[in-house]
Structure formats: C-alpha cells, structure tokens
C-alpha cells in the first residue's frame, strides 16, 4: 500500500522509513530464513543446558550430532525437492532400498533373491547401491516431469513400491554388522575432534551441506531451482528448461539418498529393512523447522541441518529432563506447526 510516490523509483526513501523492531526482525528473517532456526537452536541449547548440565557434556553433544546424521543427510535431498515446490515421501524407502542392495551385493546370504550377483567387491556394492538410489530418484523425476503428476502422489506411490521391492529382492533379513566387510561400515568410523567424538558420516554430511549451499548460491542451476519453485510459469517464460531442472533435482536427490544409505549402514552398524518408516516425515520436519518454505522458492539447505539438530536437541533435552516419549513427540509436532506459522508471517513482509 505504501508504495513510494515513484518520482524516480528510488527506494532509498523507503528504507529511511522508521520501522518497528518487530518489522525489522521480520525483514531480516525474510532475507535469511534460516536465521530463525539458528535462534531457536541456541535457545533450545541454553534452556536444556540450564535444566540438566549433562545436556552440554561433549559426549551428549557428540551423540546428538551423530544421531542427526541420517535425517540430516536425507534432509539435503528433501530441501532441494521442497525448494522446487515439490515433496518427496519416498525418501526413506529409497534410502533403505539402496542400503539393502549394497549390503546384499557385498554379502553372500542364502536368504537373498539376488544370490547370483552377490558377493561383490564392497566398493562395487556401495557404488551399485548409490546408482540404484539414483535410478530410483530418476524414476520419481521422470514420472513427475514426463506425465505432469503431482510429486506428492508419485512419491507416495514409489515409497510403497521401493519398500515392496526391498522385501521382494532381499527378503526381510537384516544383514548384521559382523557379516559385512569393513568398507560397508566405514561411515561409522569415529574419531575425536577436541572433546567431541565425530564419525566419518558426520564429516561427509557437513561436507555435503557446504557443497549444496555453495551450488545453490553460486551456480545457474541453483538460481533455476529457486526460480522453478518460485513461479514455474515465469521460469519457463524466461527461457529456463523447467522440466530439465525438475528432473535433475530428483536425480541429484537420488544420489544423496544413495550416499545416505552408506552413511546409515555405518551409523546403525547393520543393514536392516526396518530402519525407520517415518524417515520421510522426519526429513520434512527438519526442512520445515529449518525455514524452507513448503510453497517452494525460498529457504536454504543450511536451515535443514539446523532443523534436524533442533529436533534432536529437543528430543535429547526432554528425555534428559525425564519427559516421557509421548510428550516428546507432541513437542516436536508443536514445533513443526510453529515453524510453518513463522514462515507464513515472514512471507507477509511488505505484501
């Protein structure tokens, strides 16, 4: 409403307008959507640190970070997809598919339906697992781009399909840690960093966050991902090949899920088809709490890492405070709704 009198389209006067503290906060958060999650994380750490001093022990912090690694890695894939205004419900299921494929190719077990090609070199097995997850991501992308199907429905379908395929091909047998060659569990290797204890998987996760933060900010592809999520019609009219961008996002998400599969084997210490059926929803939770908008076009991967850490910190803090699991789940749910509410408020800036 308060559009300037456009004497010279000069916005300087507009900036000179006095704003209330709340308005300034709103504008700042609008520019850096992940900032609110950083504030929340700091707040959570202070509160739980005061309640229970064990919360801030290096061993607790190390455990918290290690626990974040699966959801944290998968959340990168989910962020990319949500930035395009899509959603991926198949994320956990594809990861488990990749993980079971890796393990079954590396280990010779009579329970598997892939016996003839089992017993591979572990590196080959890992590569095959990542490729399989990539192919699964490509299937999602193909169905969404080629047939114009809504991502929600496509990935709801592939969620089930890959869960079923996993059971058909590899039966329901868990491949235990001792059965697997060491390379399969490499990502679980831990080493001290100062007082903390990190794993290789955590390092890889951090590296991937840095990589994708850079790519989204500094490449044309990154700009196009935002543009496609922001307004697909506009993106297409400016000459962006929106279909190719969308497909590439699902493909890249598949690669990330494949790497997450390897990290998961390291973290869990075995390859089991029943890791956690709620992984898909947990990644969405992390992304949303991290300030990325479900409507697409705004957000940052770094927020999703913060989001995943917040969820873990709240869970850990509440459990250290002796709060029952039922209440912890409730608290996370409230957090999600709050995050979406804040996102809506931030988006109203100068509407």
């Amino acid at each position, binding site marked *: 409403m308060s559009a300037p009198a456009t004497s010279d389209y000069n916005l300087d006067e507009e900036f000179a307008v006095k704003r209330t503290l709340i308005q300034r906060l709103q504008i700042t958060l609008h520019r850096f959507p992940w900032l609110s999650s950083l504030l929340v994380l700091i707040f959570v750490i202070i509160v739980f640190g005061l309640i229970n001093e064990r919360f801030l022990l290096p061993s607790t912090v190390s455990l918290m970070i290690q626990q974040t690694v699966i959801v944290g890695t998968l959340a990168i894939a989910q962020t990319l997809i949500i930035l395009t205004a899509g959603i991926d419900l198949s994320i956990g299921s594809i990861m488990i598919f990749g993980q079971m494929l890796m393990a079954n190719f590396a280990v010779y077990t009579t329970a598997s339906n892939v016996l003839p090609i089992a017993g591979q070199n572990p590196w080959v097995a890992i590569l095959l697992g990542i490729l399989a997850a990539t192919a699964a991501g490509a299937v999602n992308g193909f169905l969404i781009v080629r047939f114009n199907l809504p991502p929600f429905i496509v990935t709801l379908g592939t969620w089930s399909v890959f869960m079923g395929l996993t059971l058909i091909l590899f039966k329901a047998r868990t491949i235990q840690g001792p059965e697997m060659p060491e390379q399969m569990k490499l990502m679980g290797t831990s080493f001290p960093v100062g007082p903390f204890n990190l794993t290789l998987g955590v390092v890889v996760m951090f590296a991937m966050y840095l990589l994708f933060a850079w790519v989204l900010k500094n*490449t044309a592809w990154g700009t196009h991902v935002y543009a496609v999520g922001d307004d697909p019609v*506009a993106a297409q009219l400016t000459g962006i090949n929106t279909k190719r961008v969308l497909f590439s996002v699902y493909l890249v998400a598949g690669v990330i899920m494949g790497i997450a599969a390897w990290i998961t084997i390291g973290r869990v210490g075995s390859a089991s088809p029943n890791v956690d059926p709620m992984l898909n929803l947990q990644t969405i939770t992390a992304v949303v709490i991290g300030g990325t908008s479900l409507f697409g076009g705004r957000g940052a991967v770094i927020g999703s890492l913060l989001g995943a850490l917040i969820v873990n910190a709240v869970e850990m803090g509440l459990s250290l405070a002796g709060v029952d699991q039922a209440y912890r789940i409730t608290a996370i749910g409230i957090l999600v709704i709050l995050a979406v509410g804040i996102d809506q408020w931030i988006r109203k800036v100068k509407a």
Partner: protein
Amino acid sequence: MSTTTSTEPIVKGRNLVKRFGSVTGLNHANFDLFPGEVLAVIGDNGAGKSTLIKCFAGAHTPDEGEMWVRGEQVSFRSTHEAREHGVETVFQTLAVAPALDISANLYLGRELRKPGFLGKVFRQLDKKRMKREAGEHLQDLGIMTVQNISQAVETLSGGQRQAVSVARAAAFGSQVIILDEPTAALGVRESAKVLNLIQDLRDRGLSVILISHNMPQVFEVADRVHVQRLGQRAAVITPKTHSMNDAVAIMTGALEVPESEQTLAAENRHNPSK
C-alpha cells in the same frame, strides 16, 4: 530479402493459424512490424491478440502460416529461440521470480559465469559482474539506483517490477520488444512512467509491440494501431487518420476500413503527440 530497409518489416507474419482444441485463436492472421515504430495491437477479448504476439514471443508455435524476423524465416519453439533472434517479451505476468533479487531476475535463464576454471569447471556465477551490469542497465533506462540491485523483486512496487521486466527485455541487444498489457495493473503515475519508457525504447531505435486495452494510452504512444478481430487483422490505422471511436467500431465489426484507407506500410513519424 536479407537486407532490411526502412520499408521492410522487421517482424512479419502471414496466414498464421493457431487452434486450441476446437477453439481457433488465430484464423489466417497477418502481421507487420516496421523498424523503430511502436505498433499497438488492440482487439476485443478473444480476438487473438495475445495468441498472435505469443507466436512471435516463442510461447506458442502456430499450426499454420509463416513468420519472418529481420527478413529471415523463423519458427520458434521456445521463448529462448525468439530471444536469439532479438525478440524479447515482457509478459503480462512479468515472468519474474519474486523471491530472487533484481540482478538474478535480470539474468534469469542467461546467467553469466566466471571466466576461466571457476566458471567452466565449477560453473560458478559471476555475481559481481551481473550485479554491476544489471545496475548499469537499470540506470541506463533511468529507472533505478544501483544500490537496490540485491533487493528481492517481491519487495518492489508494481511499476518497479514492470521496470525490471522491461529492462530485462531491453538489456540484451534485442531489436524487438513485445509488451503485453504493461499498464494493466498499474496506477496512473506508474503507467505514465511505463509509457515514457516505451517512447524511450523507440527513441533508441527499438521496435515495440504494445498490447493494451487502454485506448487513450494506445493513441498516446502508438505510431500505428493493429486492430485484431475474430482471429484476423481487421485493419491497421494510425492515431492521425482515425479516432478512438473508429478503433472501437473496427474492433466490434461496426466499421470496415478499405485497404486504401489503412496504414499497412511504415508510417512516417515521429508521432507528434509526444
């Protein structure tokens, strides 16, 4: 045919047909735009003016008919191809990404990469250069000061967004600019600003196609007026030879203008009303 003289159209369409299922958007329509003129395209709703210009913009591909740009026969399958022939379009929806900043929007779809290794291998964008040149383009058109270049487009007013879109169309050495209802969502002052911009573009030697419903604006800036009716070109008139009432009469079919009274060739300008 390859040399474009002042009387040779820069954009030409003959017998263009475009059907959408059972609906005929264009029914053997002709079109001529001459270098350095502002040609307004008017017509009732459903007369096919948007369909017509979308063919030249590359957003539609005609089912039949032929198109020429600068004497070269063309067939656009995307807006990208139209741009490569120097035809830029400012769509009614503006086609901006609201959450991205001004320079990102200006370069959307044709980003600049850093020279050398960083650009080639890591495909890193040259953000500094994009910001600097975006600022120059905007200043060049007298629309905006440079320090606002990293502002998100959604925080701009309607007229400013329009200006960003026009700047994007004018910035890349284009020869023909198509503006689809540029003032439809604007207030009086902002509309005046955009009309100035259109005249400014013409003064730089660009050819402008202006789609508008606003008759006074059309008669203020246009050199010639293409009246579209029932998917065809009903007449081409000028603000000097015909009145707004005539234009409305042609649009509705109440008046038919014999070809001898039309202005089908390039008009000797400039429009004195400026």
